[in-house]
């Protein structure tokens, strides 16, 4: 899932300080799972904003909501009728949800309430880790089910580099060396013989290098 973290409150205050009626809109999808932008976080942010502006002696109307998904039109449409009741929206969805809201609610300022970070998984409560960079052409069949693009700091396809030390990346002792993990896994799978064949340069056209991407699945199109 998409992982995000809440923006510093000061940044959000700065966005909304000139608006009287503000809607804080969460998303029940990915950002709820990573505890950055679900209903709970909406309530916490809205309360903090109210407290702050009250203390400053500024009257603000700050309302709360959370949508099933901000990245789907059907869940955003019900808000269309009410959106003119607000001067601005703080979206706690990922960058996709916030942008989609801006696309749909024309003329309404939409501010991001979270920083969208990566596609990843929950390692333990409160810890999320990156696992995929959405390169558009999955290669983990040949790397023991571990992605070197997401997990090697230099996205090497023929790693590990000379900076791998005791299982850690040269970038940080807290970051496992992706290629060390791949090696251990290939050994476990009895597939080390694949390791010595050089992997050719990757075609990055399916990644962000090819420009904004789009998937069309004709058989499900209306």
């Amino acid at each position, binding site marked *: 899932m998409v992982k995000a973290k809440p923006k510093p409150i000061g940044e959000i205050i700065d966005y909304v300080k000139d608006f009287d009626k503000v809607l804080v809109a969460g998303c029940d999808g990915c950002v709820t799972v990573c505890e950055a932008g679900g209903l709970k976080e909406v309530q916490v942010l809205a309360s903090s904003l109210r407290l702050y502006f009250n203390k400053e002696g500024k009257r603000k109307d700050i309302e709360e909501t959370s949508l099933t998904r901000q990245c789907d039109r059907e869940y955003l449409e019900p808000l269309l009728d009410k959106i003119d009741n607000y001067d601005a929206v703080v979206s706690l969805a990922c960058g996709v949800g916030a942008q989609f809201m801006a696309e749909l609610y024309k003329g309404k300022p939409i501010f991001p309430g979270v920083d969208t970070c990566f596609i990843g998984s929950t390692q333990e409560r409160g810890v999320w880790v990156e696992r995929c960079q959405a390169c558009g052409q999955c290669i983990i069949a040949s790397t023991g089910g571990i992605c070197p693009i997401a997990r090697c700091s230099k996205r090497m396809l*023929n790693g590990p580099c000379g900076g791998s030390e005791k299982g850690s990346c040269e970038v940080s002792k807290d970051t496992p060396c992706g290629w060390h993990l791949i090696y251990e896994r290939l050994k476990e799978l009895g597939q080390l013989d694949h390791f010595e064949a050089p992997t050719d*340069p990757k075609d990055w056209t399916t990644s962000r290098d090819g420009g904004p991407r789009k998937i069309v699945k004709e058989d499900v199109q209306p």
Partner: protein
Amino acid sequence: MNTTTPSKLEKILAEGHLAVTSECGPPRSTDLDIVAEKAELIKDHVDAINITDNQTSVVRLCSLASCIRIKQMGLEPVLQMVTRDRNRIAIQSDILGAASFGINNILCLTGDHQQFGDHPSAANVFDLDSTQLIQTVKLMRDEGKLLGGFEMKKRPEMFIGAAANPFADPYEIRVSRLAKKVAAGCQFIQTQCIYNMEKFKDWMKRIRDRGLHEKVAILAGLTPMKNVGMARYMKNRVPGIDVPDDIVERLAAVPKEKQADEGIKICIEQIEELKEEEGIKGFHIMAIEWEEKVPEIVERAGLYPRPNLNGSQN
């Protein structure tokens, strides 16, 4: 004897001499004379001079311009190139540019992560890695093609090198990784600086067991210690460098003003010892900001004078 390029380094190795290379780091300014001065200090004592490419991710005068300068001095440059800062378009363009100035050696590297340098907020590229850079140079040279398929009329004639670090982890993969670089087309290796001789010799044995020492010329990397502080720093702070306690203790045991001499002595002893190691084809002496000591090391290690290749030198 067969050589694939006009490289003097390749010729010296092909003739069976122990090769000696060293490196110069360009300045963090436009003062190209600094490179020329460093090269001048070592030119009679080495066969080729590596020019580092923004080493440790610190912006410096570019390797290509520096290589051209020392080529124009009649010397033999080794163009170091990292894949961190350039995509395949820029990489191939620079290779063509280098070859057009008669630069015949390249050292293919991935490069340190930019967080270690003076621009940690930079984006990195890593379109290719070191192994793929080797493949690219080989394709350009042997098939006369660019990665995109275009066939060029005049090919770059590059003797292809890479680095190897026998001291990085996981250890058991380090021979396979070298084998992979050789399979990609690597012809010479300059190793990470060696201090742990026992581990290095074990790695060499594994290299020989695979017959890799006959497929690639391995140049042992050496960096003389200036003092015990440097030894401790490299032991504790520099990733991928293995400094055994006995080296630190040996330097600590002599008075401060004698430590530099002791460092040089250790380096010379290492060369003498490694000359006997089957599969070692030469030495890469990286005297970091201490280039003036290279002639002394080369002479005292019995590697001087350097071979004079008829008609091909200068």
